[in-house]
């Protein structure tokens, strides 16, 4: 413990402080330039967030119920392709409450192998209640017919 009484050698302290500053500065500079890959831990969450937002936006505009209840599957695929980033592949299935698949056409974009090979596949569930269908000039059919939309997303 005699060393605790040492009061000389302050230049070493100054050297260490200066060296620390240089290291911290270098690390900060490297951090600015570095392109950090997205953590796979949060990838599925990010895709889920994206999927929910896209479906909610289409629903708010009144497009989603129209495409689903009028069975405009081509338009629905196009709307999803436009709304999602290019590197995001999707596969959507529409079910009724009994679990019967409604879409007879695949609502799909991307390489099928990506869905089987990828470890990060996000799945989004979205519900719809119904849509008024015009039967003739004076009659509308406005029934409660819920649909469950399952949207699977992965990055290509």
């Amino acid at each position, binding site marked *: 413990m005699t060393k605790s009484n040492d009061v000389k050698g302050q230049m*070493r302290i100054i050297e260490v402080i200066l060296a620390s500053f240089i290291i911290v500065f270098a690390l900060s500079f490297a951090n600015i330039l570095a392109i950090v890959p997205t953590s796979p831990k949060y990838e599925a969450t990010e895709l889920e967030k994206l999927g*929910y937002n896209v479906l909610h936006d289409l629903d708010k505009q009144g497009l989603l119920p129209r495409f689903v209840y009028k069975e405009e599957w081509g338009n629905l695929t196009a709307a999803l392709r436009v709304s999602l980033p290019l590197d995001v592949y999707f596969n959507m299935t529409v079910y009724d*409450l009994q679990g019967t698949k409604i879409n007879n056409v695949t609502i799909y974009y991307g390489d099928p192998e990506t869905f089987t090979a990828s470890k990060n596949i996000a799945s989004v569930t979205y519900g719809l*209640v119904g*849509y008024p269908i015009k039967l003739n000039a004076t009659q509308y059919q406005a029934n*409660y017919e819920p649909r469950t939309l399952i949207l699977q997303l992965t990055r290509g």
Partner: protein
Amino acid sequence: MKRLIKQKRGQFVIIAVLMIAMMIISIGALMHRAVTYYKHEPWEEYLTLVGNIELNSRRLVELSLANYTHTLNQAILKTNLEKWQTDVLRIYLGREIALDYTLASGTNYNYSLGLTRDWNKKASFSAAEASFSLNITSIGLTGYNFTAIAFLNLTIISVNTNTSEITVTVKGEDRIPIPALKKDNFQVVEPTNITITSVTPRYDDKEILVYIIKCNGTIPASVSVIMKVWDSRGIQVTAKYP
């Protein structure tokens, strides 16, 4: 300065400084993780889930009003909301959603089971109202309340028997004029021999937006005019003039 550089002692102070620095960095990293923790919580996903349930509950009130104005089934809103209350649990399995509702009764309008209509008058309307309370236990959300109102008003302002023109206004919730209605959205029920040839929207100082409905044939002055309107949601209203 030379003497200071040549000194070889004082290393304990350096070790102490380094240890303190390490402690500060560790605390800083811990604080940073604590402050940025919210970023990893899917708040947007929760907001969209709440938004989806709210939006579709509102849609269901509109859909039920549209059904009611075509079938006059007074219990349709209650029936639909009961189904929605249980189906929302099946759609969002594992989310622990509890959706409660209260149907409006006789407040502003003479509601019965959340639905009302006042037709065959110069100013007629159809309306529906329900209040909701949403709890999502899985994300700790309780007592999220909202009210869904669906409303459509048709007012026949004037009937010009000389030009066979009927001037009407169509308004939705909060008395906001409904734009972009076309010939297909209107029907002259009486006199029966009258058909619509054109519908022209026009700005009006008082009503903001009025529709001029041009008819073929002559509208007799002694006969009442009965008109129907449907909006894009399928909600119907019948008005009578005078």
